[in-house]
């Protein structure tokens, strides 16, 4: 086991009933790294997140969080080291932003009353996503981008250690897509957070990720830096689309331009 690893996924295989969803997946992340998890729909990305979270236990292999098996942590202790932002939930009830973010303090809270430092932690979490000014608003009255920031704040109120995101930029306009990803990147560089995010846009991956894991039919086809993992051939075989990879002379970033399918 790599002792310095924030997260190590070791030869994980997982099957629902008879259907194998993950096959021998392995990678390891250091503190402060931003990993993009990419792959076609149904390739096992969300299942992998659930295995990392300890919601599903793999039939083979294991997940190690800070050097210990993830399933060995009691649930609240695990929640103090790892938080998850799922795709936006449907919320039919009028919680305020502050109430919603305070839910992230659950693993620290006593059964009754407020936990010590709760107010401070909520404020800090809101400031990290620049949403402190929204604190008194009802969550249901916010725009999609504001909601996503608040949901991320809830996770930050829980922990800044390891953060998992399932498609954090889905349904957002370009401004908020970049805002959200920039926030996640800043959490890595300034707060030392380790981030794993399921992303679909190769250009977002290229702009923000330190590491990329490409899943295809439950197998980790490639793991490494953007340049190591994402090339025209791999994108074609994984996604079945033609893309041209172009390096921007100014920023040195690689951009991917998809081509129309040949009929």
């Amino acid at each position, binding site marked *: 086991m790599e002792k310095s690893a924030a997260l190590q996924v070791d030869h994980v295989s997982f099957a629902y009933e008879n259907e194998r969803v993950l096959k021998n997946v392995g990678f390891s992340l250091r503190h402060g790294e931003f990993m993009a998890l990419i792959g076609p729909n149904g390739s096992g990305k969300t299942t992998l997140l659930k295995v990392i979270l300890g919601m599903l236990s793999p039939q083979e292999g294991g997940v190690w969080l800070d050097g210990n098996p993830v399933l060995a942590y009691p649930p609240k202790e695990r929640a103090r080291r790892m938080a998850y932002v799922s795709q936006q939930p449907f*919320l*039919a009830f009028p919680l305020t932003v502050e109430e919603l973010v305070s839910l992230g303090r659950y693993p620290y809270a006593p059964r009754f009353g407020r936990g010590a430092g709760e107010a401070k932690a909520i404020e800090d979490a809101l400031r990290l996503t620049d949403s402190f000014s929204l604190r008194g608003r009802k969550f249901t009255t916010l725009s999609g981008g504001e909601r996503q920031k608040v949901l991320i704040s809830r996770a930050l109120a829980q922990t800044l250690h390891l953060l998992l995101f399932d498609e954090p930029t889905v349904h957002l306009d370009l401004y908020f897509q970049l805002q959200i990803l920039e926030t996640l990147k800043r959490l890595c560089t300034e707060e030392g957070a380790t981030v794993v995010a399921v992303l679909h846009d190769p250009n977002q991956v290229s702009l923000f990720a330190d590491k990329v894991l490409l899943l295809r039919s439950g197998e980790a086809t490639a793991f490494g830096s953007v340049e190591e993992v994402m090339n025209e051939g791999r994108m074609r075989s994984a996604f079945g689309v033609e893309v041209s990879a172009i390096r921007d002379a100014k920023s040195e970033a690689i951009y991917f331009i998809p081509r129309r399918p040949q009929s």
Partner: protein
Amino acid sequence: MRRIFWGWLILFFFLLVSLFVALGTGPVKISILALSPRDQTILLHLRLPRALSSFFVGAGLALSGAIFQGLFRNPLADSYLLGISSGASLGAAAALILGFTSPVAMFTGVSFFSFLGSLLALSLVFYFGSREGSFSVFRLLLSGLGVGLFFSSLVAILMIMAEEELKALIFFFMGGFSSSTWDSAWVAVTLVPASLAIALCYSRELNVLLLGEETAQSSGVNTRFIQVTYALVAAFLTSISVSVAGLIGFVGLIVPHVVRMIFGADHRILLPFTFLAGGTFLILCDTIAKAVLAPSELPVGVVTSLFGAPFFLYLLRRERGEYGL
């Protein structure tokens, strides 16, 4: 915080006023300030158990509605839609027809059978509503609708088959407190507050569950334990209400919404407020039910909808999109 403080104060004030009016209303005029021995008997053995029954049944119905809505993250969920009331009714009807009205352990026979019925309904709802060990909210609601309709038809068949007990059954299902005595009141008076205590213990977990099962699990909540506990508590409350007062609609669905619109969706506040508001509301409705056409009585369920629905519709119209619907 100020709003909550004033909320408590105003609700307690309403509760006291409605209790006072309820105790003073009835076919016999009595003066609460100068009680004759006869008045004392009327007050202590008829009106007090009736007022307390209506308070705790209302509180229980409203609380079970708030729990079901929170648990299913759905503003339409309540014990009627989920079929739990029908299960409780089936149990109660069976107990009445079989003559099981003697006390069984600490419950009266009807409460006990009604609880069994609601448990049966709950298990069926979860059985048909789950797939591969996980629940979807909509699947559960649809499953509840199916189970409820099936059980209602069984109740109808029981009623047709029952000859001698038909009148008792009709009277029972009309709902109301006209026959309330201490024998039926104490079930609600003791068990409904106990259920509130359990519900309050896990209200923080219920809040986290509003964000969905996965988020709750990843926050360290034992979601399965919380779901089962709350489902049992809400089913229990439903069966108590049904066995004490028959079927009374509206309170469980609407009171939680009204409280939520005024005080917000945090269950630590919502649950006790809903309890108090539901109880007060039903005392008032029962008092109106016995006063309007005195000496005959209106079914209390008619009054709850007649007075509650316009207020609810007014709030709904005024609501500024905070419900996210």
